[in-house]
């Protein structure tokens, strides 16, 4: 029975990660599209993001109830046992669930407000969005292997989480823009993204390496434990995403003139999204089922 709760927790957490990153990508969209941003482009991205955020919200609930069921060890009935739910709500797990629900609800309200307001400037969307992104990232630090460590480590994890949410949340935005704009505009957008991505990707790699160093007592543990092996698989997938990004930057984007090359680009971004989903699933498993 316990493996069912593991699967449900991993599924719920994966949906949360995807909802979180969809919001981060949507907040970044006005900057990505650039000056002369057509509000309709941003609105369409926000409409899609809202659906994904809503799914993320359901994911948080699924994760919380599945975690309660796992702790209660009473079968499926444990998921809705009132006493266990109360106990779980009083722990760090409850804090994290509350922060996630508030963060994603705030994201939905912000997105819908932005879509329905007549003010065309994006400047208030970004600071409000960043505040909610910080709250969602803090919820990840509230629980898990890093939560017991000093503030410095938690700050490193927050930087990692925000960087990843932004990076992986931007890819579906790129895909959508690439399928709906002419090659010249897509080329500008892709070049702008490559320029913006350089520093955050560096932060992701450095913060990821710092955490990996803290989580393992020895190099042997990296390949001898299941946690280490799964982490290596995640690193391999991230490496694939980086290779695809490099392929876009150096080969596909410079060739962007004909519609054929744009089709190749959108297909390649589609592959990138598949790898991203796998990274989210593995991360959810690493932080739920296994320990270093």
């Amino acid at each position: 029975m316990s493996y069912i709760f593991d699967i449900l927790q991993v599924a719920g957490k994966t949906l949360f990660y995807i909802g979180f990153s969809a919001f981060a990508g949507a907040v970044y969209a006005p900057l990505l599209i650039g000056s002369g941003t057509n509000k309709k482009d941003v609105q369409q991205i926000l409409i899609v993001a809202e659906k994904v955020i809503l799914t993320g919200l359901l994911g948080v609930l699924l994760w919380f109830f599945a975690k309660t069921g796992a702790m209660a060890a009473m079968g499926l009935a444990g998921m809705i046992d009132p006493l266990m739910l109360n106990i779980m709500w009083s722990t760090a797990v409850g804090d994290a669930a509350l922060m996630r629900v508030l963060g994603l609800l705030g994201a939905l309200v912000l997105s819908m407000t932005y879509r329905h307001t007549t003010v065309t400037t994006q400047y208030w969307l970004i600071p409000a969005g960043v505040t909610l992104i910080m709250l969602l990232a803090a919820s990840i630090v509230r629980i898990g292997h890093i939560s017991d460590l000093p503030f410095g480590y938690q700050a490193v994890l927050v930087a990692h989480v925000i960087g990843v949410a932004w990076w992986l949340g931007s890819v579906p935005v790129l895909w959508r823009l690439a399928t709906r704009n002419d090659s010249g505009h897509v080329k500008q957008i892709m070049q702008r993204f490559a320029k913006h991505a350089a520093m955050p990707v560096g932060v992701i790699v450095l913060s990821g390496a710092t955490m990996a160093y803290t989580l393992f007592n020895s190099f042997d543990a990296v390949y001898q434990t299941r946690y280490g092996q799964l982490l290596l698989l995640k690193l391999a997938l991230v490496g694939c995403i980086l290779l695809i990004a490099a392929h876009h930057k150096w080969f596909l984007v410079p060739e962007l003139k004909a519609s054929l090359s744009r089709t190749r680009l959108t297909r390649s971004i589609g592959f990138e999204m598949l790898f991203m989903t796998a990274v989210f699933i593995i991360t959810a498993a690493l932080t739920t089922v296994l320990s270093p």
Partner: protein
Amino acid sequence: MIKFRSFLLLSVLLSPLSTFAHSDVELQKSIPADNAMLMSAPKALLLNFSNDVRLTAISLTSEKGESIDFSFAPAFKKSASYQWKLPQLPPSTYTVSYVLMSDDGHKIAQDYTFMVH
């Protein structure tokens, strides 16, 4: 200079630990003990842990799979020591299975057995 200061700040922030500190929880003592062979049925079940822990579930089952009720209810407060009165246990091999929740929200499931002759 700024880079050096940033490095210094990061070093200070990270310095308290160079490796990950697991919140290792151990069952230090139990009555009946692990693998105990008892000539008479135990009157109580006692678990002593190395730190305060949140015990969310515990079960006592005989080798036939019968679950023994001893009025366990999960508690809000953490404790290092837990004790319950047991009903009269007929001869069998019993398994004590329990679930703990660590402070970082992870599940720790453990079990041990004892025998009543």
